[in-house]
């Protein structure tokens, strides 16, 4: 009886599959639930994949598979000579999605752009606090409230941003998820109906996919936006099957319950590559892991001591042990996929004997230090504890006694920023917008001391270069400045740069057209799936 039933069920399922065969569905086993669907409110990539990269567009977009920007909802733009005025010509005839819950009556225009930014910038905007505790974290993190003086509608298809100071990375910032463009018409309707919080639950934008439904913690469904200004996606339906455990994601892919998934376990990658039905795409991640000395505390205030310690640590061994080789040893503070990366720089080679001598020459004897190991696994550092243990053993060989300490994650982040912190911190960074400024000034600039600058390192020469680059719009000129900055960084060694990890994306061989994005976002607008 049982087998009969199972057979009947299988038959039914098969016939139903047959019935929908002309609808191409891609199932993506996503790694977690989105926090909400208004990308302005959040900072997590999981949320962005489900909202900004499917439903929304921005004025400028990152080209598929690169950190270069290309026109998005803005067709073209001009920057004033003083670098403070950005004028965008908007694309015409762009339609907002029509859904069960809203039917737009007009095309995208300048009002939508002004609305999307003002709600984040102006505390008196009715949408500024439309959900409890809305803090517009990313916009604040990128300094938008201080940077942007005004967002003005020049005419229906022209918008002007006036800045308080020239800022070259601004254009790249506009490609970021929090800068997604929402529909003002939809917002007005929700406000009139007293249902503003729906903006965070039922999103509506101009992007490649239209939101259909979200079953909390289980499934998100989208359908292709037939009116998409950049051409209708090749798949008809996109489904996110939320699967938090990486081992289960692998099982689901192998069983055909999904066709693509992110963040495989490092230990699974080899086996996935051997599976003839699967492709595993890989790309160098836009990230760096580092060991930041506290350069305000002796003897770590001396560059030669820091360099000696760097030479004592075998980074290759760390990459092999922690990443099973699936990462590359870092020599610069920015990843190799980023423009202005200076490949001519020579790393301080692993050489314990030379390190020992350098320490002796610097008058350092019987050094005792602390190494801070993060309590969590991050893409740039899967196991900080293990890395710290290897460093500890390496340092012991040159006569340095290292003690490993750790704190709970939020506490770790807070305490590691302290100027008088005792010890060297393992931490890292994943790029926000593909601009070198986002690493070099954000993590190593003088104004980040006591904050993101965990080395508490303020070098005037370096800082002048990155500040100058920030105010220069010419990319060739900026590249030169950043390359000079990287030379100073290597000479001064405020960090031991540990690794840039590799990002893997396993998928069924039926999936074509998927490009990995260095920014760590997952986009499906170019993807097709074979029958």
């Amino acid at each position, binding site marked *: 009886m049982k087998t009969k*039933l*199972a057979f*009947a*069920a299988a038959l*039914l*399922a098969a016939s*139903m*599959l047959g019935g*929908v065969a002309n609808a191409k*569905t891609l199932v993506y086993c996503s790694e*977690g*639930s989105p*926090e*909400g669907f208004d990308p302005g*409110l959040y*900072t997590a990539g999981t949320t962005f994949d489900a909202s900004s990269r499917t439903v929304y567009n921005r004025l400028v977009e990152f080209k598929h598979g690169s950190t270069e920007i290309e026109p998005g909802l803005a067709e073209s733009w001009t920057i004033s000579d003083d670098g403070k005025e950005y004028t965008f010509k908007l694309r015409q005839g762009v339609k907002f999605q029509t859904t069960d819950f809203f039917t737009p009556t007009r095309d995208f225009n300048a009002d939508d752009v002004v609305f999307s930014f003002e709600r984040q910038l102006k505390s008196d905007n009715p949408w500024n606090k439309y*959900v*409890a*505790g*809305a*803090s517009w*974290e990313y916009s*604040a*993190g990128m300094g938008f409230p201080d940077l942007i003086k005004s967002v003005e509608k020049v005419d229906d298809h022209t918008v002007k941003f006036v800045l308080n100071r020239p800022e070259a990375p601004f254009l790249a910032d506009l490609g970021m998820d929090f800068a997604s463009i929402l529909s003002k018409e939809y917002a007005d309707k929700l406000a009139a109906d007293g249902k503003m*919080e729906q903006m*965070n*639950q039922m999103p509506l934008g101009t992007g490649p996919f239209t939101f259909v*439904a979200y*079953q*909390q*913690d*289980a*499934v998100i*469904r989208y359908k292709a936006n037939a009116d998409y200004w950049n051409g209708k996606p090749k798949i008809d339906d996109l*489904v996110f*099957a*939320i*699967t*938090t*455990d990486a*081992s*289960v994601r692998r*099982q*689901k892919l*192998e*069983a055909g*319950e999904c066709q693509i998934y992110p963040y495989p376990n490092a230990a699974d990658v080899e086996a996935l590559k051997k599976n003839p039905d699967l492709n595993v795409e890989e790309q160098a991640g836009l990230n760096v892991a580092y060991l930041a000395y506290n350069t305000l505390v002796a003897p770590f205030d001396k560059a030669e001591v820091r360099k000696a310690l760097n030479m004592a640590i075998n980074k290759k061994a760390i990459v092999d042990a922690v990443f099973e080789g699936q990462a590359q040893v870092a020599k610069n503070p920015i990843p190799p996929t980023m423009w202005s990366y200076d490949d001519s720089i020579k790393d301080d080679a692993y050489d314990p004997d030379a390190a020992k001598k350098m320490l002796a020459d610097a008058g350092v004897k019987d050094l005792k230090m602390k190494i801070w190991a993060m309590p969590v696994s991050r893409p740039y550092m899967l196991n900080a504890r293990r890395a710290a243990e290897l460093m500890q053993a390496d340092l012991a060989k040159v006569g340095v006694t290292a003690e490993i300490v750790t704190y*709970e*994650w*939020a*506490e770790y*982040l*807070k305490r590691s*920023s302290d100027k008088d912190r005792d010890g060297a911190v393992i*931490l*890292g*960074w*994943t790029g926000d917008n593909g601009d070198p400024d986002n690493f070099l000034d*954000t993590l190593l600039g003088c104004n980040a001391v006591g904050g*993101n600058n965990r080395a508490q390192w303020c070098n005037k020469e370096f800082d002048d270069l990155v500040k100058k680059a920030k105010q220069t719009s010419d990319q060739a000129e900026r590249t030169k400045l950043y390359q000079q900055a990287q030379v100073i960084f290597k000479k001064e060694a405020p960090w031991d740069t540990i690794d840039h990890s590799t990002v893997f994306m396993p998928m069924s061989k039926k999936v074509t057209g998927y490009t990995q994005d260095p920014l760590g976002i997952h986009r499906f607008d170019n993807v097709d799936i074979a029958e």
Partner: protein
Amino acid sequence: MLKFFLGRVLVLVPTFIGVSIIAFSFIRLLPGDPVMLMSGERVMSPERHAQIMHELGMDRPMVMQYLSYIGGILRGDFGTSVVTKQPILHQFFTLFPATLELSLCAIIFAIVLGIPAGVFAAIKRGSFFDQSVMGAALVGYSMPIFWWGLLLIILFSGILRWTPVSGRIDLLYFFPPVTGFMLIDSLLSGQKGAFASAASHLILPTIVLGTIPLAVIARQTRSAMLEVLSEDYVRTARAKGLSPFRVVGIHALRNAMIPVITTIGLQVGVMLAGAILTESIFSWPGIGKWMVDSVFKRDYPVIQGGLLLIAGIIMLVNLLVDLAYGLVNPRIRH
């Protein structure tokens, strides 16, 4: 009986207050707060941190926060999630049916297999059957849920392809939830094959979540049965010439059930704890998974509200168990 009932209910009030204090204060004793975690590696200035904490009302003295929290609960307002910005009660009732459905299946699975196994093991004491059942129960009880779940997935879904890997129903089926119970909703949807799909998705999580209760119930039934079978009245019943079925099934089992019912009641707490892991492995959208995510994000309102609601359910079940004793054993209600 009424006095017995009222007495039990009155005890719930101080228990509930105690639980609310614990739920409220424990999560705040953990280092870190939701605002700090929101910004990740990017450092938030202390001023900004203070401002957002103020907006969330988290800078007030703990006692004040607690009182306004309790005030809200009395008005039926459990607060809003810091992360999703959604009302907690709404989220709880969206997710709870999934947990309840899974837990009910697991407990039924445990009872249906556990009680007969325990009874037979007791009757055939010392036999090969007894020893293998008790051995298996010990293994089942000691098996880490996470490992057990993954093992079953790899075998039955990965290698044999008999069961789906995870989720509640095949993604092919798409209908709005009516009751929140997938088995019922799939029938109501009228879509062919939906019920079979929902049922097949329940098999592995039910086994995984039901394993520990199954082991406990089987062992408890066996030992209770052994005790009862050595009682004088059982010997008398046998001496009267009653059939072995009547002796064991009617006379002995009914009395042996009292400690077993207690055990089953206590398993509800164990199951909700087990649901946390089971739901995480099987991507089962229930309250266990919801709570785990919230702890990682320090979503205080969700954790304290969720704990309180779960504690309320456990208390309610215990009350029902107490009342059930009364039905099984008349001595208790007098």
